[in-house]
């Protein structure tokens, strides 16, 4: 006779934290298994990773713009 089956509930909030690398090693394994086996979870991860890419494409390179003189002078004057 087999022992009790452990039921692991993965919430979308945890899947989101998984995308950000904010889970413990054990939690990460659980969510990774869920993403592998569940199409909806896999779709969420893909959609949020795509959002991240677009967010960076939209704003990422602002840091390469030259600093306006008025801001530099605020600090250095």
């Amino acid at each position, binding site marked *: 006779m087999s022992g009790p089956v452990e039921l692991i509930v993965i919430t979308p909030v945890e899947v989101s934290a998984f995308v950000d690398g904010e889970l413990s090693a054990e939690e990460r394994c659980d969510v990774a298994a869920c993403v592998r086996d569940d199409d909806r979870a896999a779709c969420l991860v893909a959609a949020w990773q795509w959002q991240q890419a677009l967010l960076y494409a939209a704003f990422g390179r*602002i840091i390469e713009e030259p*600093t306006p003189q008025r801001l530099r002078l605020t600090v250095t004057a």
Partner: protein
Amino acid sequence: MRLSTEQAKAIEAEIPYLRRYARALTGNPDAADDLVQDGLERAIGRFDQFQPGTNLRAWLFTILHNMRCDQHRRMVRRPLELPIEETPQHACIRATQTDALQLSDFRRAFGRLSEAHREVLALVGLEGLDYQQAARILGVEVGTVKSRVFRARESLRREQLMLERPTPRHMWRAAA
């Protein structure tokens, strides 16, 4: 307060990151730079409160966050002052026309989020801060950041779906 040369250099090096964070918050390059300027003035005035060896960028982000909260207390919540897609082209990646449309839609969708959602996505998604750092800046619990990031992503996904442009095949299907 008078800054030393090293202190001034350290703050100056953070200005690009402050501008990016402020741009994501306000959606308006001029308003963003005004916010950064006010933030820099406040930071210089209170630099004796900064603890050497701690994260200067996070400290400056906290100042911008608090200033933005002050601004919000003075005005009713409203959409971004300018459509966020009006950010200069040189701020964007070079893209094909399709990519440019997608990026333009994304900026519009992002601009429709609440400021709390834009802010948490800017800190975690754009600036790469962990939940604990973001929580300190926002003055909330780590669990709040965790759930807020999730809600922000879902709101953004809904906005993106609403703005999704029909492709010719979609139109053909709709017409059939």
